[in-house]
């Protein structure tokens, strides 16, 4: 009976541990794109996975980084362990305490501190920074595993070897190394495991050129994780499971008294299998077709020169191949046409883009900020003037969109899309009696916990400003305070602050109301016919997203070629069809189907547009005020300035007291 109880308990714990994994595996065979609806069994995601360059590339990066970092850490850590072992006791414990810092410190602090280090060293973020960061948190695990083996080793063994005529090197290789081998192998395996699994530290130290799988998945979780990733993790799960089974079966079979050594052998096999696993995804990609693009441009200028550009765009803001017929893969087309390699990464808000650029570690060649952010970047000298000789396709862009307030002479930017903000609502969840054509509905308590809100300061403030009848470009402290107060009032009603996650949440009927960009609203309405879109009468924000080249760009001309490519009629058309925003490209607009061209959600009447207000770049002080008000709203707190110093002193005091008492206690113990 007692045993049965134990078994049930263990089974329950495992149910808890494996429930989400079951979800992943089941969904990797789910024909429906939705996570919670079963649409029939399919292997499609596995097929699509093999065609997805981004995922495979990041898998390769993950494994390469893990392998290199683990090898370096193993060598460095083993040497360190041997050295530390031979030191005097005081030195030993001091050094050990410091070397455990990276694993005892919160990961986020380690990540942030390394990011600051790399920024101050002016290293550009990429493979190098990733590997350095991974080595620094892997080494402690190696030391941790090798040191005990050195302790257990019989000291006389080495002496015996020396007596028998070995020199010191021989004694080291023939005696010490085999003795500590199990520790080294375990350390290596732990390094690989932690490196593959790491997200937080990679998040702060990765660059546009090297994205690990965690980072790719992270950028997906902000919107919708592709079932392809489920397929990938199912594969990884199966492979690891098989490796573990083999290792265990091998161990059980041998079942010898000298367990540690055998264990190490199994682990060696595991290490080998892991290395093989690293090589699996190195598959070839090859495509060929002929070109419909304008011939006035020498697209081949950079072919075969190993030129690489980094493009940083909004999530879901470019046409990609989703494995359906007729899908247009913008990046692949550009690479094929020009031979230029593109690293494509995405951001979720203008502010995130700004933070990445400002931190200095990230190099981008093409970015696509919105109007006010473009203005801010221009003002702060963070983007450079374009050479329009390289961008002849600018002639396709409607004059209406050139020379806007953020770039009056139109020297820095090429408009990509435009659009405006309205309210998306779920007709089945919103009372038809209620007026949706007003921002007030987002403050209606009836919909408490059913409202989504912008997770970026400028858009969120704009709504509060419209509601209060202020200008969205107000730099007036009082008006900003009032707007912040309005947002604070709304917070208890908000289910979640979102950006790209909105597709998932509105599409899945998780919330009733949300402000968002009109183009995205159409995408969501296609997924979920219950959704509607309303334009608030108090006014709304109208925006232009424009392509620019940051000051630190490595390949300006190649970047201009990319911008020019994006303005090719064919490309502009495919992209606008995919992302469903409104296009400033005159020829692409002509080619759009009538039902889109005449759809008021895409192309509202001039009368409606007269209520729209565009963002301008705000003065620095106002931006600062908004940023700090926003942080306050998100963390809803009051302020007592002297609290932190007191808190710090108390913490340090108590910690010191505890530790000193401990040392004294130990001393007394030793004396006795």
């Amino acid at each position: 009976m007692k045993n049965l109880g134990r078994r049930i308990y263990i089974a329950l714990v495992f149910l808890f541990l494996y429930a989400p994994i079951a979800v992943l595996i089941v969904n990797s065979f789910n024909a429906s794109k939705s996570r919670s609806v079963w649409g029939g069994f399919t292997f499609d995601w596995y097929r699509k996975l093999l065609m997805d360059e981004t995922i495979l590339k990041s898998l390769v990066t993950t494994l390469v980084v893990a392998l290199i970092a683990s090898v370096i850490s193993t060598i460095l850590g083993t040497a360190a362990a041997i050295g530390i072992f031979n030191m005097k006791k005081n030195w030993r414990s001091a050094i050990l305490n410091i070397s455990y810092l990276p694993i005892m410190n919160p990961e986020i602090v380690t990540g942030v501190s390394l990011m600051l280090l790399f920024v101050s060293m002016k290293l550009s973020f990429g493979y190098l920074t990733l590997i350095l960061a991974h080595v620094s948190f892997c080494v402690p695990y190696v030391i941790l595993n090798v040191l005990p083996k050195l302790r257990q080793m019989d000291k006389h063994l080495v002496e015996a070897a020396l007596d028998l005529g070995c020199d010191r090197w021989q004694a080291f290789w023939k005696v010490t190394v085999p003795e500590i081998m199990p520790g080294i192998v375990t350390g290596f395996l732990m390094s690989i495991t932690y490196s593959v699994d790491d997200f937080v530290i990679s998040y702060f130290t990765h660059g546009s050129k090297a994205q690990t799988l965690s980072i790719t998945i992270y950028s997906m979780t902000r919107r919708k994780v592709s079932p392809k990733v489920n397929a990938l993790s199912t594969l990884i799960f199966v492979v690891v499971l098989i490796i573990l089974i083999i290792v265990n079966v091998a161990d059980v079979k041998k079942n010898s008294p000298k367990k540690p050594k055998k264990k190490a052998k199994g682990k060696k096999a595991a290490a080998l299998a892991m290395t093989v696993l690293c090589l699996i995804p190195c598959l070839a990609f090859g495509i060929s077709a002929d070109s419909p693009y304008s011939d006035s441009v020498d697209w081949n200028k950079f072919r075969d020169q190993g030129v690489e550009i980094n493009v940083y765009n909004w999530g879901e803001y470019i046409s990609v191949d989703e494995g359906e017929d007729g899908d247009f893969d913008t990046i692949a087309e550009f690479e094929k046409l020009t031979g230029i390699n593109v690293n494509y990464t995405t951001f979720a808000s203008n502010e995130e883009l700004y933070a990445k650029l400002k931190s200095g570690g990230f190099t981008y060649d093409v970015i696509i900020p919105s109007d006010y952010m473009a203005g801010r970047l221009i003002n702060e000298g963070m983007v450079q003037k374009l050479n329009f000789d390289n961008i002849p396709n600018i002639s396709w862009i409607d004059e209406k969109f050139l020379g806007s307030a953020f770039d009056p002479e139109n020297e820095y930017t090429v408009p990509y899309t435009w659009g405006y903000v309205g309210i998306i609502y779920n007709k089945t969840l919103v009372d038809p009696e209620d007026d949706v054509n007003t921002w007030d509905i987002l403050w209606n308590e009836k919909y408490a916990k059913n409202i989504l809100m912008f997770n970026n300061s400028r858009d969120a403030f704009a709504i509060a400003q419209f509601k209060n009848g202020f200008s969205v470009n107000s730099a007036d402290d009082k008006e900003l305070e009032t707007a912040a107060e309005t947002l604070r009032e709304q917070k208890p009603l908000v289910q979640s602050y979102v950006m790209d996650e909105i597709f998932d949440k509105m599409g899945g009927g998780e919330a009733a109301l949300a402000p968002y960009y009109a183009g995205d609203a159409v995408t969501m309405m296609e997924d979920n016919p219950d959704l509607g879109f309303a334009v608030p009468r108090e006014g709304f924000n109208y925006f232009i997203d424009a392509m620019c080249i940051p000051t630190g760009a490595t390949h300006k001309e190649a970047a201009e070629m990319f911008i020019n490519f994006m303005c090719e009629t064919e490309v502009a058309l495919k992209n606008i069809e995919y992302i469903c925003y409104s296009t400033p490209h005159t020829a692409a607009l002509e080619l759009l189907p009538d039902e889109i061209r005449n759809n008021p959600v895409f192309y509202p009447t001039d009368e409606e547009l007269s209520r729209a207000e565009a963002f301008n770049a705000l003065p620095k002080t106002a931006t600062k005020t908004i940023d700090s008000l926003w942080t306050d709203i998100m963390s809803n707190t009051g302020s007592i300035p002297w609290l932190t110093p007191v808190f710090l002193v108390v913490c340090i005091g108590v910690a010191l007291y505890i530790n000193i008492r401990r040392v004294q206690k130990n001393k007394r113990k030793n004396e006795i």
Partner: protein
Amino acid sequence: MNKNAKWAAGPYLLWMVVFVIVPLILIGVFAFTTEAPFDLEGNRLTDEEATLLIETEGEDAVVNKTVFTLNHLFEVSEYLPVLLKSAWLALIATAICLIIGYPMAYFMSRFRKEWQRVIQMLIMLPMWMNFLLRTYAWMTLLEKNGWINRFLGLFNIGPFNMINTQGAVVLGMIYNYLPFMILPLYSVMLKIENTTIEAAQDLGAGSIRVFTKVVIPLSMPGIASGITMVFVPAVSTFIISRMLGGGTNMLIGDLIDLQFLGNAYNPNLGAAISLVLMVFIILCMSITNQLDNGDEEMEGKMI
């Protein structure tokens, strides 16, 4: 064995200085400094004066310099409640992990050897799935239209509002860090010999007394390291709260992220918050270390 052997640690010591000590010093430096505008004669300007000067005399009339300040530290005061909230949620998560993990580790250690290995393997296996994906899968389970509510819906129960609550965040912490509690506990439980327990029983202790007087004291080192290994990552997590808490339950980790790569760019403030977090963690670790009166070095603690 060999005096020269200690030099083998040389490269690592160099590494440690550059990649462990210097970065931590940098955090301190950032936390206590700020960029302030100066005019060309070296006079400090206020922001308004600087804007004015730029407007009248152009960009070059103002230079930014790094100056010492305590302001960021004062600013952090606003966010101490966030730290305390994170600590509170992490504490709940740690307690529940201990409650779930303790019996689990004990049962595990009393199984036959082969079974122990299998169970241990099964506990480690989920760690090979990306942690973001596992957390994302919890979203699928907990949502209003998620699997759990659909399942309960079959029996006309619910739907419950589970996602975007503090409970969901705590659940995410428990799920992700439970193995870090079970494994250290298991490794100390292994060392408790059955004969010790039998001896206690022979001397007349009932099962409760055996548990409180023998098993718990002997497993103290495991409890201490389990608590540390769950509490530290839980208190500083930033992605679980965003995914399962919906951004309305901001934790200290989110706050740091917000200052570095998020919507409110201010690395100096971010560094100050990190510094405070670090000190707080040192305090917590000093306290948990009290539980464990054993070895002076930490070896063997990490499984």
